[in-house]
């Protein structure tokens, strides 16, 4: 079964790019544009990892990060993928499993996702 990847990103073109790239990498990539939609998707079924933007309409991606991490082991790994590099030094940065700055070169993102999925215990199945 393909690992399920939740991508939270409000920019449609970026969503499409991630979906295309991760689809080609063999992931089941699900794109949502808001925190609310992300909550629904997470409630619907477990994810191998979440790729999370920070600046989202209505509700910050950091809130979602908090919610996921509060679940402890029940939560899934989160990669913050943001235009702002500052998050690396913030509390959110400590909370997230990885913090990367957005770039057209997705190699680092793909490598990171691959690494954290392999090192994190799979969600309770």
């Amino acid at each position, binding site marked *: 079964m393909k690992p399920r990847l939740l991508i939270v990103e409000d*920019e449609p*073109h*970026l969503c499409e*790019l*991630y979906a*295309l*790239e991760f689809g*080609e990498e063999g992931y089941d990539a699900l794109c949502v544009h808001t925190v609310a939609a992300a909550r629904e998707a997470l409630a619907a079924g477990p994810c191998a990892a979440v790729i999370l933007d920070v600046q989202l309409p209505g509700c910050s991606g950091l809130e979602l990060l908090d919610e996921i991490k509060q679940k402890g082991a029940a939560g899934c790994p989160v990669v913050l993928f943001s*235009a*702002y*590099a*500052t998050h690396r*030094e913030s509390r959110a940065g400590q909370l997230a499993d990885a913090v990367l*700055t*957005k*770039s*057209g*070169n*997705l190699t680092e993102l793909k490598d990171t996702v691959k690494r954290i999925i392999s090192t994190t215990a799979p969600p309770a199945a």
Partner: protein
Amino acid sequence: MCSETAMTQDTRSDIAQRYQFVVDNVSDAVVLVDAPTGAVIEVNRTAEALYRQGRNVLVGRPFAELFPHEQREMASLRMQETRQYSYIDCDDLDALALPSAHVAIHLTGRLIRTGAQDVLLFTIRNIASHRALIGNLLATQNALIKNQIKLENRIRELSALTEVTTRILNTRDLDDILDVVLMAVTLGTMWAFNRAVICLHDPATDTLRGTAGMGPSDGTEAEELWPMLNPQAATLSELVATCHRSQMFAEARVNRLVATLAFPASEGNSPVQRAIREHQTVVVPDDACALPENAGLCEQFGVRSLAVTPLMSASSFYGVIIADNNVTRATILPEAVEQLEVFARQASMAIENAQLYRRLQRSIDDLSAANEELKLNRDKLLKAERLSTIGRVTAQVAHEIRNPLTAIGGFARNLARKLGRQEELGRLANIIVEEVDRLELLLTELLGYTRRSQPRWVETDLGEVARDVARMLHDELKSAGVSVALDLAGDLPPVTAQREHVEQVLINLLRNAKQAMDGAGGAISISSRAEQTAVQLTVSDTGPGMPQEVIDRLFEGFFTTKRDGSGLGLPISRQIMQEHGGDISVSSSPGAGAAFTLHFPRTAPTSIETASAHR
């Protein structure tokens, strides 16, 4: 005709009587002398009175006998002269009155030719009272001259005093004041002291310390020093001008004495402490030098007698002047003490003035400095605020750009990968990828330039930072064929720095070096050095080096020699170093590699503007 008739009518004796009356009653003594023999033949009453002898005694005596023994020769000479020249007039003779009184006289002699015999007529005027008057006059004149000299001396003293006072009060420099006072006390002819020493009070330790001295230490030195005093120097100014303490007394032994002097101000009973306690001059006379309370000071100065006068104003105490006559051993006169006190008062006022002036000057300097700093800080704040605004706007724009750029770059990469086989299209897609990469780098560095987290100043071990950065970039450098050698001083003092920013600078430098040697490989070395005021970190490479025209533009924003460079790495590095109160320097020449040196000050940057620049 008429008189002739009268003459004939008068008898001869009548005429003779009348003449006799006249002659007897003139105020001068009249003596008629027989010219050939020199014997007196007639005298009048006035002559009798003058000589206190009767006519009968005087007539018949030689003329010379009317004079004192020692003058008789002179009298004979005058008589001869009268015979010879018919007339004499002199007042260098005395009449010899009985019993032996000398009476000063004025003598005139006249030769009268009467046909039968020549007669000499002498008139003698008593000028004794006249002489006495002249004597009195002369005495009075002498007294006047003496008084005038005294007065002139006094005027000279007073004008010198005025001069000293004016000079002292117009002097702001403490050393100059001490010079003038010491000179006034020791150098001029009117001042009675051979040597004087000033000890000033140090309030911190409540001690008096020898500060300045003037005067010879013994006869030998006096023989050397005193002739150097310009005897022509009439005023103190000239004196001061011709013999400055520092020149004249540089070698003098009085300085050695001065150096040894230190007295507690409050404790003890030596003349120094007594003068301070009693607020007045203490004179130790010769016969008191052996007293236990005086012996120490007298011994130290090598004299039996000295004077100590305090330097004090109504509110403050500054020190003492100690003066003595160590060379001439002359007694210390009350006048000298008085002068010493006058100068001590002047000096105290001047010292007070000088101190006030110094304090005032210091306050003014402090205020000016504070004002300058305020202005500087205000300018820096304004600049920082401007930068901060620009930074915020830039950051916003940069973030807005990053999203579309990520999409463009991502899709272009995807395309390039898929078109890899179709050569031309693949190449074009790759160009998009490369250009987007460049733009992304530019964004990253631009954000680094404008967006900084709150600066965190920490004690930083630069060696540790260098090791960390070298470790961080190890793989990246190794893959480019570049080796890194660390040559770090073991005892490098820590500096106060923003560690992350210093890391960024080092990363910039190492990446630049790598890129400079890219392809060919090479070696980077990081060395450190502690200077007296700075700590230095140098990154050198074995790359191709740079010509001067490149070096000149290295720190300009957006200047780059690299195809994929942003031109911001070095300007940002310089800005970071300047925020640390340091700088970055470069030395390089074509073919000789390049060395970039970071200079950190050993003290922490204190200004607040570095912090405000990032808000």
